[in-house]
Each structure stands twice: as structure tokens, then as C-alpha cells.
């Protein structure tokens, strides 16, 4: 489910997830439209609005299921603040 289904009353938070290896941008749809950016250092940054903790864990589970090594998860800022 993408963010616009939830409505504006939920504080939607930006996350940045860094993984090892370059993940092809074609995976964006698989990760519900999060953006995939390849970094110089051989990592990939997955970035975007994630509506809540359940959704965040959903993304992490998808990463686990394809065997991508996870480096970090960072919360960026709350939207509309």
C-alpha cells in the first residue's frame, strides 16, 4: 500500500536504507516506489516515504528475502513539520 492511501493525518516519515551492492533500479516497483540510488562506494541507498513501522519492517523483510546485506536504516525527517 502506498502513502496516499493512508491520508494526511498520519505523520509520514522519510527513511533511508543502505545496502551492500548495486541494486538495479528495476526493483523500485518491488519496493513500492521507493527510489534506488547507486552510490560510488558500491552500496545502494533506498529512500522514500514509509508510512509506519509495519511498512518499514515490510521493506526490511523484502530485503532479507532476496538476501541483500543490510548496512543501515536511518529516519530522515517527518513530513509537514
Amino acid at each position, binding site marked *: 500500500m502506498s502513502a496516499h492511501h493512508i491520508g494526511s493525518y498520519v505523520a509520514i516519515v522519510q527513511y533511508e536504507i543502505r545496502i551492500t551492492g548495486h541494486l538495479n533500479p528495476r*526493483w523500485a516497483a518491488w519496493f513500492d516506489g521507493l527510489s534506488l540510488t547507486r552510490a560510488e562506494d558500491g552500496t545502494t541507498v533506498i529512500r522514500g516515504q514509509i508510512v509506519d513501522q509495519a511498512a518499514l519492517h515490510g521493506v526490511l523483510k523484502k530485503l532479507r528475502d532476496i538476501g541483500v546485506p543490510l548496512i543501515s536504516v536511518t529516519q530522515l525527517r517527518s513530513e509537514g513539520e
Partner: protein
Amino acid sequence: MANPLVATKLYIPSPRPNLVVRRRLHERLSTAADAKLVLVSAPAGFGKTTLVTGWLGALADDGAAVAWLSLDDRDNDPGLFWLYVLASLQVAVPGLGAAARTLLESANAPTEDVLTTLVNELHNAKQDVAVVLDDLHVIESKDVHDGLAYLLENLPKRARLVITSRSDPPLPLARLRARGELVEIRAADLRFNAEEAAEYLNGAMALELTAADIATLETRTEGWIAALQLAALSLQGREEAATFIAGFAGDDRFIVDYLAGEVLQRQPESVRRFLLQTSVLGRMRGSLCDTVTGATGGKAALESLDRQNLFVIPLDDRREWYRYHHLFADVLRARLLDEDPDAPVELHRRASIWYADNGEPSEAIRHALAAGDFARAAALAELAMPAMRRGRQDATIREWAQLFPADIVRIRPVLAVGLVGGFMAAGEFERVEAQLHEAEKWLALTPEDRDAAGMIVVDDAQLRALPGAIEMYRAGLALLRGDSAATVTHARRVLAIAPDDDELGRASAHALLGLAAWSEGDLDSAFSEYTRSIAGMRHIGHIADILGESIAMADIRVAQGRLRDAQRRYEQGLQLVADHGAGPLRGTADMHVGLAEILRERDDREGAAEHLRRAQRLELFGTRQYPYRSRAVLAGLRLAEGDVAGCLALLEEAERVYDTDFSPAVRPVGARRARTHVLMGDIHEARAWVRERGLSTDDELRYVTEFEHITLVIILINDQPRERELRQVSALLDRLLAAADAGSRGSSVIEILAVQALAFDARGETASALDALRRATALAEPEGYVRVFTFLGSRLQELREGLATGVARPRSQQAGLVDPLSERELDVLRLLRSELGGPEIARELTVSLHTVRSHTKSIYTKLGVNSRREAVRRADELGF
């Protein structure tokens, strides 16, 4: 049944012929003889399942039976999860787990009971048993994890769990590790080392790579087996292996993604399309693939993938069902979504049609939901609902309840009420109320208005039963609120409107009416309602309900003063369990406690103690009442043995675990404790209880406070009452007696009469006292009551002797004690006369120092003294 078991989930994957034998890991595993749990925990594609299947041969050689269960996310429903576990056991060892399964499927029994029975069965198994749970990471349900933890904790020596998972399961791993009961194989262990990589690439795959190439591949993949497999597939038939290897070795791309792309690119377009389209399926077979792809030749396509080793895994011996390797499936699905974002909707819709046509509604619903086709999913769910309810798949119903949008449910009253069961199980009572209300609004409309407003019902039979179902849920809600009157109203309506063939509904309604009548003290009605309920439950084979209601009926007989009949009923309950043949069931321990209580009342201490010992051995099979009831009975036994301190300690424990499990709380532990304080002469404590409960002689009387009011009277009579208080006591006793008589509550009548005798006696009305006592004795003797009298102190004993001999001494200006010293206290008193100190006295009596102190304190209280010397002097005065 809505969910026939999918046999492929129980199939042990056969080891691949071109397998690298993991000798070093098999050795680790074979040292695991004492391990309760073998945990293979690593990311996707590390060869977890392959390792376990490879090792099973060795296990089987040692004579162990292997039960296999491949999990998927539907198994988050605890009912379904355990059903599959039991089914897998039965495949491994015919008959093993059968009793637990009977319990799970027919008896409406809680998971804990099922597991307890399973533990018993495993305990009696003739051989070692290994239960493999493959892909446990898909399980997120806390209930399932709790059940697994319970099973692990109680697992008999000859059984073990083998778990593969992508993440460590929330089980007490540290504890198992510390006890040496855990063997772990993790990612670092599973990675192919250089030797194994060579064996695989050049041996199994016959690629003829140089040592340098193998080293490069091993380094780049870090021994990740799935990546090595993809690399091998990409390299097959390639001329320039070294160039290809060098190409991706110096590259940062996510290796599986990159290699899967290579493999896909090398397939013919038709195969590529087949792979992408069928990736939406959790399992595949030829005809299902044909329906989904809209083409033919699905069976041949699957067989061809199987031959080429293209990440399909056969799920049965006949090679009918397959699935993709999970990691590869994700890669395919992600590509499909990227290339054609709308495609999955139509593919899922087609899969839903196939499953509906092939008798698997829950899969059909799943795919319809995945397709976003809620109307279709709703229609399927509505039709599947009765079977889901019978199969106790509350968690699945709850999941549906969350997945269906409100506007879909709103216009489907049958579905809405069906989903209520899920909300009830989840404790979301406000939603229950709201859904029932909505459904009722539909029922109030004329058929024309229903159509006009767009009501949708696909199952007319359920629509006819809907009013009864709604009332039953209302009755349940009222019971949870503690609203007895509303429970009765709704339960009566169920009986008025539920169709005759709704036996569970009708039997449940009778049980609720029985419970309500019991709570109001109308024991005759309660008994006859339970009788009807049990007849219905017997007819549909709900043994757990039969047992629970048998306990209630025996308890009611006790309250009616019919100890012999109650005893017979507890014994019949035990017989029923024995006949059922599934081992002990929940409630078995309670039956023994009930028997112990009756024997205790008859002062058969040995017999009572024996039943308590049996109950204790079966305490896993106790109801929620068991913890407090068993302690309360044991407290009564201690008291009969003169161990007042022990009695009080047990009553305090009983109070902490007090839970009557919806039965009326008619003999609260606090009142029993207050009575014991009276016996000890500790009126101050007893009075404190009266204040705390806010009891007075003018209170309005209700059955649930009857025992407390009798306790109040006992306290008042023992606290040097004046004439005015005695009048109040007598008035209260008259009212209590009238109420107990009206409700046929024989047990209460006996006790009230005995207390009344004391009250008359205290007012000097000896003849009336004897009359009351005579009546009490007439009721009590045929049933064998003893303790109810002895519990009331020495003066009552004198009166009873008077009744027997025809000579009753009038009440003396009791120089003696309100309450006599117990045998144990007399022992202590005897030693207090000696020179022995506390510890020596304790040794002499083989009790703890603490117990001696308690007895001493009790003796001081009863004798009204403050020191050992005074106690000895006072005892001399009293002629002890």
C-alpha cells in the same frame, strides 16, 4: 472442509542428484544427539533446506522418523499451523499425533490442550522423532511462537525440532544454548568454501573452470550458494568463461540480481514469459499454469525447468506440484512488476478462478485479494465461512476481517457477521457490536429495500440462520460484560429463532442459560439447562465442552448438597476422558480436585490427598479454575490436620491465582481466609475482612454473596456478641435460610442451620438450637458431610453430642476457648512446657521453625496470652 490439507507441504524434498555433500556440516549435526532444537538460520539461498534433507538420510538410518512441514504465510493461523504439524507427524509415524488432532479438529479445544496431548503422545512414541519446520521465518504469529516455545520446553527426550529460517525465531535460544540443547548452523557455516565451490562447479556442474576462476567466483559470491548456482547456469555452454567471470568480479552489482538477469536473458522468450507470469503463484502445477498464462503446455514447461535445474523445486514424488526457489521467485516477481505493473492483477485473478474450481477456497480468496478483486474474495469468503468456523480458523477469519474494505463488508451482512467471530477472538468487542448492528439493519428491511440498497448475499442458508447467530454473539458479549439478565434474554432468543439443525448454537445457548441460572442461585434450572446443552454437545462430539459442562454440573450438585451425585459425576467425567482415548483432556485435573473436595468434606483425608496428588500430576490439564481450587482444597486438608499456618499460606496463594473462569464466584477465597482467622481466634483479622468487603447484617441477599454473609455471621457469633447483635444475626440467618431453601441450595442450608444452632445456643435457646441442628444433620448425614460441622468449633460439637445422647448441657460461661487448640497446636504446647527452644521443637516435630512460630502465635492468640510462660500457666488453668 474449507481448507483441505495441502499434501505437498508435508513432502520431504528429495535431495538433488548433483549435490555437494556437506560432510563437515553433517558431522556437526550428528553430534546433536541431545539437542532438542536444531536451528539452521541463514539468508535465502544458503542451502538450508538442502542441508537438512541431505542429513535426514543419516537420521533415518539411526531409526528416527522424520516429520516434514514446509511453511507458508497462511500457517500464521495457529489452528492451521498445528493441524499441519500433527498431519506431518502422522505421515512420519502412523497414528502419532492422532489424539491431539482429534482434539484439535473435533473438540474445540484450546491450543495448549492440543499441545499437552501431543507431548504425551511423543512421550509414548516408540522411536525417535524429528519434526522439521522448513521456512519458519514466514511465521509472525505470536501464538504460534508461544506454542512452539511451550512444545520445546516440554519436548520428550526422544523428540526434536529442526527449524530452518531466514531470521532467528523468537524462541528461548539462549536458554537452550546454555543447556546444550541447541545445535546451530548459521550463514558462516553454510557458505561454500573453496573446496566445496570447486566440487560444485567442476564436479556437479562439470564446468572445467581453472582454480583461479573458482577462487574469483568464491570470493565474489562469498560462498553464497544461490549466487554460485546462478553463476554456474550462466556459465553453462559459454565459451569465454574467464572473461565472463572477470566481468562481474570487478562489478558492484547485487550479485543475484545480475546473475538472474543473465540466466533469464539466455532463455527462449516463451520460457522467459512463462517464468515471469507463473511467478505470482506460490505453488504450480500444469493446469494451474495453463489457466494463469492462458496458454497450454504448462506441465511440459515445468518438467523442462525441473530438468534444467532452473530453480523449480518438486513438491511431490509424482512431480505434479512445483514451486520456485523463494529467492528466484522474488527476483522474477520484481521483474514482472517492473516490466508490466498491471500484469499481476490479471494473473492473480486467473489463479483465483483455478483454485475456486479446484476446491481450494482459501487459496482462491488469497489470489482474489492479491488481485484487488474484493467482491470476488468476499463471495468466496462468505461461502467458506461455516467450514472456517468449524475448523476454528479464527486467525484466518481475523486476517480477512482486516483485509476486506469496510464498504465491501457493509453491504454483505452474512459476511459481516461471519467476520465477527474473528473480532471476538481478537477481543475487539466494539467492532463486534458495530458489525452486528449493521447486519441487523439489513435484516429489518423488506427484500425489495434490501435489493434497492444493494445488499449482497451469496449463501441463503446462512442468511436464514443470521438472526440466531447475531443473538448468540450478543449473548456472548453480555456474558463477557457480566450482564446476566442480558445473557439470558439473548440466549433465549437464540433458542426461539435458531434453526433446529444449528446444534452448536442451541447447545451453546443452553449452556449460557445454565450459567446465568447458576449465577442467580437457581440451581435446579441451571442443572436442567446444562443437561440439555450436554446432550447437544454429545451429538456433535464437542468433548471439550462436554467436560467443562460436566464439571459445572457436578459443582452445582455440590451446591445442592448432593455430594454423592456430584461424586458420581466427577467420576463419570474421568471415565469419559478415559473412553475418549486421547489421553487426559483439559478439565481432568479439575475432576480430581472436585473429588478431593468431597472426600475432604467427609473427612477422608487420605482419599482427598490421593486425588490431589493425581490432580497435581495432571495439572497441565487443569482449567483456569484449577490453580485456585486445588490450593483451596489443600488448605482445607491442612486445616483438618491442625496446620492452621499452612492452611493460611495456601489460601493466600489461592487468592493470588483466583480465577473462576466465568463460573459464579460463590465461595471466594477471602471469606475462607476470614473463617480460618476465626478458628485461630484472630477476630481482628476477620473483622478487617468484613470491613474490606463492606458486609452488614442488613444487606440485600444474593447467591454470589451467600457464602460471605454466612461467614459474616460466623465472625459475629465468635466476637462476644451482645443481645442486639445476636438479634441481627438471627434475622440475617432467617433470611439466608429462606433464600437457600428457595434455591434448593442444600449445602448452604446445612451450613446455615448449623450456624443458626450456634446463634440459638448463644441466646440460651438450647431446644431451638437442637432443632436446627437436627434438621441440618438429617440433610448432611446421608451425603456424608462432616467437616461443615467440625469447622464451626467445639461448642457445635458439644451440641451435636447432645443431639446424639439426648442430653445437651446448656452453654457454659465458657472458661474454655472459643476455638479449641488443634492437635498440632497441642503438640507444640506440650513442647513449650519443656526446656526446648524453637529450633529444637521444630526438629522434634519435623516441621520448619516458621511453622512452629505460626503455631505458637496461634496458641497465644487462642489462649489470650503474650508469652511462653503465660501460655503454660493458662494451659494449666484450663486443664490441658
